[in-house]
């Protein structure tokens, strides 16, 4: 077996001590020490989240306010292809920051928050590995028009799974009013009289119903412990988060999408509003419009493999007669389906569901089939 490298100096989230108490195996991720799993293991955490509720620490992700006296959403639309201007207060949009070439700087969640002190506000959640890049990009591009304020004093927790809403109901009023991709400002009252404000979003990255909760760092541990007192909640680590998002057919920045891939190639056209597709006004519109009209040269697809051997990031994808047509970007074993699954970019002609392909794993060809995404049906709650 290969040696396990000792870790360098890493940042800690507000929940670090709790992870250690819970027996989390801490690993480096985007410069932070985070639990890849707890003693029960990735498969158990994954299946528990699908059946009950899993609690994830996602405090490493970047949270920020974007504010302006007026037209903050219109200003932000200069940087993203998503329809932000039409977002009602309390509604969330998934979108991407695009490059002038139509690549993806990052993918992110944008929430229109209530105006505050005479300023219109958007609440952003971006990837940990990209937050420094994103914040400089946004602040520079929109200098003098909007103000970007990174939020350093709040943790971010994700409670995901079919029992998440019932778990949160005693602590947060009106939780059941929320529909998928909406948010509200709420008060949280936990055990031991712990109180605080919480921004609750009915969203997540597992394919299940669930919530992301932005809470003050000072009470984050008490808040998490309150939730963990409920028998329906178990802690879940980064390993399960990755296998859940893969089953849900969701892209991971740095693996499935990056500055060389466009939203069209990545199958993210659904996140680009009709008005934006027609009128543009965001970086990379030329390429994106061209790919929408003429089809992209390659497309991200889901693959199911025969047998049990997983294909990993970087594995070559070929036609059955041995012509190389693409590459796996994310691959692993699906705990819910009990078989190996992968995401891969393939030449557009081979992107149809049902297409038989071959993945090369350790110099051996493994049979695979293009399937519709997601691998496991989404179970979002829409009211």
């Amino acid at each position: 077996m290969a040696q396990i490298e000792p870790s360098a100096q890493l940042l800690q989230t507000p929940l670090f001590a709790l992870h250690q108490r819970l027996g989390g195996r801490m690993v480096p991720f985007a410069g932070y020490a985070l639990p890849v799993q707890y003693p029960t293991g990735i498969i158990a955490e994954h299946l528990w989240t699908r059946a009950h509720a899993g609690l994830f620490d996602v405090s490493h992700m970047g949270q920020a306010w974007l504010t302006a006296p007026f037209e903050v959403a219109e200003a932000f639309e200069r940087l993203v292809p998503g329809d932000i201007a039409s977002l009602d207060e309390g509604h969330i949009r998934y979108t991407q920051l695009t490059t002038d070439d139509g690549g993806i700087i990052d993918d992110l969640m944008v929430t229109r928050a209530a105006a505050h002190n005479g300023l219109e506000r958007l609440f952003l959640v971006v990837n940990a590995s990209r937050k420094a890049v994103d914040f400089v990009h946004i602040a520079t591009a929109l200098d003098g028009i909007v103000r970007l304020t990174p939020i350093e004093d709040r943790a971010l927790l994700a409670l995901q799974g079919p029992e998440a809403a019932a778990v949160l109901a005693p602590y947060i009023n009106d939780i059941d009013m929320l529909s998928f991709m909406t948010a509200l400002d709420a008060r949280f009252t936990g055990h031991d009289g712990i109180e605080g404000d919480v921004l609750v979003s009915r969203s997540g990255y597992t394919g299940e119903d669930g919530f992301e909760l932005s809470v003050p760092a000072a009470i984050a541990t008490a808040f998490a412990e309150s939730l963990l007192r409920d028998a329906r909640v178990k802690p879940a680590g980064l390993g399960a988060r990755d296998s859940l998002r893969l089953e849900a057919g969701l892209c991971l920045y740095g693996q499935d999408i990056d500055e060389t891939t466009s939203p069209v190639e990545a199958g993210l056209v659904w996140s680009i509003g009709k008005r934006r597709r027609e009128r543009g006004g965001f970086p990379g519109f030329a390429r994106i419009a061209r790919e929408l009209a003429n089809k992209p040269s390659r497309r991200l697809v889901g693959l199911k493999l025969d047998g049990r051997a997983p294909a990993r990031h970087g594995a070559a994808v070929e036609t059955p007669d041995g012509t190389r047509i693409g590459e796996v970007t994310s691959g692993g074993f699906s705990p819910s389906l009990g078989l190996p699954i992968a995401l891969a970019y393939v030449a557009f002609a081979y992107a149809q569901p049902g297409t038989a392909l071959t993945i090369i794993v350790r110099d051996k060809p493994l049979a695979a089939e293009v399937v519709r995404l997601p691998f496991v049906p989404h179970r979002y709650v829409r009211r």
Partner: protein
Amino acid sequence: MSIVKYTKEHEWVRVEGDIATVGITQYAQEQLGDVVFVELPVVGKGLNQNGEAAVVESVKAASDVYAPLSGEVVEVNSALESEPALINQDPEGKGWFFKLKLSAAAELDDLMDSEGYKAFVEEQH
């Protein structure tokens, strides 16, 4: 009379006569997490000490397993194909990988005994 020795790559080897049974240690399976697939060598293959012998895939990643000793593969644990979790449940028992007919028994002297391995693992932390 069997001898059990360990490698720095966290394999164990149990030698009985000229046959050595090989697997990965309790520490190794803990580090790997849930095992979902194992690629075993073919019977008849000759392995060199420290050469690649098998691959073990966890949910997260693939890891190579090396031959602790040189020899010819005489048997593999085919139960692992349908039940790779045996490696997590019983790594130093039912989760064995393969058996070798040894070609250079003196190589055993290169390996650690259980005391030495225990100390080696503690050093890793």
